[in-house]
C-alpha cells in the first residue's frame, strides 16, 4: 500500500469516527432534552426503574461481593511482602468505593441493561413498532429513550452505593473469617478511612456510567440495521461502546476528583 493510500485510509477512519461521535453527541443531547419536556410517561419510567435498578441487584451483589473478597486476599498477600497486612480494611474500602465498585457495576449494567435496551429497541425498529409509535402520535424519544435514561441516571448511583457496601462486606467477611482480622477494628478502620469525597466520586461515577449505558443502548437500538443480523450487530456494538466509554469516563472522572 502506498503512503498516500494509507494516509487516505487513516483520514477516512478519523472522519468516520468524528461523524459517529457527533451523531452520538447530538442523539444524547436530544434524548436528555426530552427528559425535561412533556409529555411524560410515568408507567414506562416505573418499568425502567424496575428493570434497570431492582432487577440488576442480584448481579451487582454477586459481582461486588466476590470482587471485595478477592481484593482483600490480594491486598493481604501483597501487603505481606513489606509487612503492611494491616492496611487491608483501608485499601479494600478505598478500592471498592473509588474504583472497583463503580467500574464493576458500570460494566455489569453495560452487559445487562445496555444489551437489553439495544436489543429491545432494535427489534421494535425492525418490526415497525417504532413507526407504529409515531403514527399513534407518540414520540419514540420521549416514550422509549427518556424514561430509560432517567431511570439509569437515578438507579445506577444507588446500585453503585449498594455494590460498594456489598464489596466492602465481601472484604470484611474474608478478612475476619480467613485472615484473622478483628471484626470491630476492621469496621472502624474502614469507616475512619473513607472521606466524603470518596463517596461523592463513587456516586457521580455511577450517574455518569448509568447515563452512558442507557444512551448507548438507545442509540444503537434506534440506529439498528435490518433483520436479525441488524439487531445482533446493534446489541454487540452498544455493549462494546458502553464498556469502552465507561472505562474512559472512569479515567477522566478519577483525574477530575483526585488529581486536580
Amino acid at each position: 500500500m502506498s503512503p498516500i493510500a494509507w494516509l487516505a485510509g487513516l483520514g477516512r477512519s478519523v472522519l468516520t469516527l468524528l461523524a459517529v461521535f457527533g451523531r452520538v453527541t447530538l442523539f444524547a443531547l436530544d434524548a436528555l432534552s426530552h427528559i425535561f419536556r412533556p409529555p411524560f410517561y410515568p408507567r414506562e419510567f416505573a418499568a425502567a426503574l424496575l428493570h434497570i435498578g431492582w432487577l440488576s441487584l442480584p448481579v451487582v451483589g454477586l459481582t461486588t461481593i466476590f470482587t471485595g473478597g478477592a481484593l482483600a486476599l490480594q491486598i493481604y498477600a501483597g501487603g505481606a511482602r513489606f509487612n503492611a497486612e494491616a492496611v487491608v480494611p483501608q485499601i479494600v474500602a478505598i478500592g471498592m468505593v473509588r474504583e472497583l465498585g463503580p467500574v464493576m457495576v458500570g460494566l455489569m449494567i453495560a452487559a445487562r441493561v445496555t444489551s437489553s435496551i439495544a436489543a429491545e429497541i432494535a427489534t421494535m425498529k425492525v418490526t415497525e413498532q417504532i413507526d407504529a409509535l409515531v403514527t399513534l402520535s407518540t414520540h419514540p424519544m420521549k416514550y422509549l429513550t427518556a424514561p430509560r435514561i432517567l431511570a439509569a441516571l437515578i438507579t445506577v448511583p444507588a446500585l453503585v452505593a449498594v455494590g460498594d457496601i456489598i464489596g466492602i462486606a465481601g472484604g470484611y467477611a474474608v478478612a475476619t473469617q480467613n485472615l484473622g482480622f478483628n471484626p470491630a477494628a476492621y469496621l472502624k478502620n474502614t469507616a475512619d478511612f473513607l472521606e466524603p469525597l470518596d463517596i461523592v466520586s463513587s456516586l457521580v461515577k455511577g450517574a455518569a456510567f448509568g447515563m452512558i449505558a442507557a444512551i448507548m443502548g438507545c442509540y444503537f437500538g434506534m440506529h439498528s440495521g435490518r433483520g436479525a443480523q441488524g439487531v445482533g450487530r446493534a446489541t454487540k456494538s452498544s455493549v462494546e461502546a458502553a464498556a469502552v466509554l465507561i472505562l474512559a469516563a472512569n479515567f477522566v472522572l478519577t483525574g477530575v476528583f483526585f488529581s486536580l
Partner: protein
Amino acid sequence: MIRMENVHKAFGDNHVLRGVNLEIPTGTSMVIIGGSGTGKSVALKCILGLINPDSGKIYVDGQDAATGDRDAFLAKFGMLFQGGALFDSLTVWQNVAFRLLRGSLKRPVDEARAIAIEKLRRVGLKPDVADRYPAELSGGMQKRVGLARAIAAEPEIIFFDEPTTGLDPIMAGVINELIREIVTEMGATAMTITHDMSSVRAIADNVAMLHGGKIRWTGPVSRMDDSGDPYLDQFIHGRAEGPIESVR
C-alpha cells in the same frame, strides 16, 4: 383529500420515487399496486412523515404535510402495518387503546378498555383476547388486533400496508371484507398497498399502479381490467412476459 405532487425520494443511488403525482379524494378507498421494491411503502411513509421526501409536496385536506401541528396531523391517521407492529410488552387491549391511554386523546382507563373491547369485537375477536399478549395470538388474530388499533380513535384516514401478507386465502378474504366494511361505515379515506389482486378487487374504489418510481396508471377499479396499459395488464394477470422485467 390526499394529494402528492411530484414527490421524489432516493436512498443513495437508488431513486425509489421519481415524481409521484397522486390524488385520493376524501371518503374513497385507493389501492396502490406494484412490484416489490417499487416504492409503495416509501410513498405511504412519505405521506405520514415517517420518511422525508427529497422534493415535492404532500397535502392532506389542503394542509402541507411538512408543516403545522404534527400531533394534530397524525391524529387524523390510523395505520395497519404489514407485520401488525403490535407492542410485545403490552396486552392486546392496551395495544388497541394505546392512543386512548396517553396524549391528547387520553380517556379514563375503564373507558379506554371498553372502547378497545368494542373495537376487538368489531374485527371479530372475543373479549377474552383482550388480556392476552400479542405473542400468544396467531398471525390472522394479530392482523385483526392491528386493524382494531388502527380504527380505535376513529381516524379520518386509514392506511393499510400489505394487509393480507402471510395469511391463508380464507383469512385474507375475511380481512379484506373487514377493511371494506369498516372503511365504508366510518366514511374514512383509505389507502392500501398490496400485491394481492383479490385485496385490490375487494377493497378498492380506485387503483394506482406504481412502476419505475412514478404512477403508471390510475383509475377506478372497474376500469382496471380493460385499461389497455401493458404494464398494468401484465401485473394484474401475473404474466412473466411483458414490459415489466422479471428475474428468473
